[in-house]
C-alpha cells in the first residue's frame, strides 16, 4: 500500500534530483526496504511522505558520498528522457500543437533544473511539484527553514531565467 501510494512520487524526486533513472530505482527500493525495517521508529510526528522523503534523501546522500565523481558522470550518460512521455501529457486541449508546446515547456524546465545544484533541484521538486510545506522540506532535507527558503527562491529564479521569463 505504501509502495503503491508513494513510489511514483519518490521515484520522481530521486530521479530528477540525481538525473540517473537506474540509480533512482535502486534508491527507491532501498528506501522502502529501510522504511519497512524501521517502521517501529516512525513516531508519527510528521507525515508518512515526509518520513519516506527523509529516508530516500539520506540514501541518496550515501550513494553520492560513496560514488563521488562517478555519480554525476553516470547521471549525465543515463539522464531521464521526457520526450516519450511528453506526447502523452494530459491536456484539456488535445490538439497536437498544444501537446507539443507543453512538451517543449517541460523540457525547458528539465534543462533548467539540470543546471541547478543538487540541493536546489531537490528543494524545487519538493516545493513546486510535490507542493510540500517549507517546514516539511526542512525536516526531510535536514536544512534550516531559512536555507530552504533561500534554495526555493534561487531555484525559482534560475528556472525563470532559463525559461526566458526574467526581465
Amino acid at each position, binding site marked *: 500500500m505504501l509502495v503503491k501510494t508513494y513510489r*511514483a512520487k519518490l521515484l520522481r524526486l530521486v530521479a530528477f534530483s540525481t538525473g540517473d533513472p537506474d540509480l533512482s*530505482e535502486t534508491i527507491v527500493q532501498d528506501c522502502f526496504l529501510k522504511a519497512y525495517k524501521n517502521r517501529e521508529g516512525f513516531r508519527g510526528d510528521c507525515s508518512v511522505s515526509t518520513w519516506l522523503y527523509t529516508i530516500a534523501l539520506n540514501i541518496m546522500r550515501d550513494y553520492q558520498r560513496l560514488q563521488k565523481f562517478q555519480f554525476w558522470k553516470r547521471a549525465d550518460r543515463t539522464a531521464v528522457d521526457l520526450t516519450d*512521455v511528453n506526447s502523452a501529457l494530459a491536456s484539456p486541449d488535445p490538439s497536437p500543437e498544444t501537446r507539443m508546446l507543453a512538451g517543449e*515547456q517541460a523540457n525547458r524546465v528539465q534543462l533548467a533544473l539540470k543546471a541547478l545544484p543538487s540541493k536546489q533541484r531537490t528543494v524545487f521538486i519538493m516545493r513546486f*511539484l510535490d507542493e510540500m510545506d517549507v517546514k516539511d522540506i526542512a525536516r526531510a532535507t535536514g536544512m534550516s527553514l531559512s536555507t530552504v527558503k533561500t534554495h526555493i527562491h534561487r531555484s525559482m529564479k534560475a528556472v525563470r531565467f532559463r*525559461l526566458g521569463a526574467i526581465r
Partner: protein
Amino acid sequence: MTLPHLSDEQVADYLSGISRPATASHLAQCAECREEIDRVSVSIHSFNQASMAWSERATRLGSERATRLGSERATSARGQAQAAVAAKPRSARAWYGIVGIACALIVACALLLATFHRHANVSEVVKGKAPYISDGTAEIDSDNQLLGAIDREQDSTSLSPEKMYGGQVPAITLTPAARID
C-alpha cells in the same frame, strides 16, 4: 510612472501558493507580471505532468518486471519442486522394481530347485524299488535269455528219464487203483 515589478521572492511565493495581498493587488494591475507568472506556472505544470507520467510509467514497468521475474522464479521453483517430487517416486519405483524382480528370481529358483529335488527322489524310487516299471524290450530279451540259460543248465545237470533207466523206459501201466481220478 511604471509600477515596480514583483521581486523574485514574491514570484516564488506566489507560485508556491502563498498569495499575499500586495502581490495580488500588483498582479491585478500589472499585465507583464501576470503574463510572466502564467508562463512560468504553465511550464512548471507541464513539467509536473510529464515527470509524473514518466515516474508512473517507470513504476508500472518496474512492477510488471518484478511480477514477471517473480512468476518466472515461481515457475522455476515449481518446476524444480515438481522435478524433485517426480524424481523421488521414480527412484523409489525403480527400487521397487528391482526388489520385485529379485524376489521373483528367488522364488523361481526355489521352485526349480524344489522341482529338481522332487524328480531326483522319484527316479531314486524308480531305480531302487520298482524295476518293473522300466519295461524296455532289451530287458525282456535279457530276461528271456536268463530263463533260457537256466533251462539249459537244468537240462544239462538233470538226467533224463531215458538216461536214468538205460534207455529203457518201463512201461507204466495204469491200474485202476492207481487211477488218480
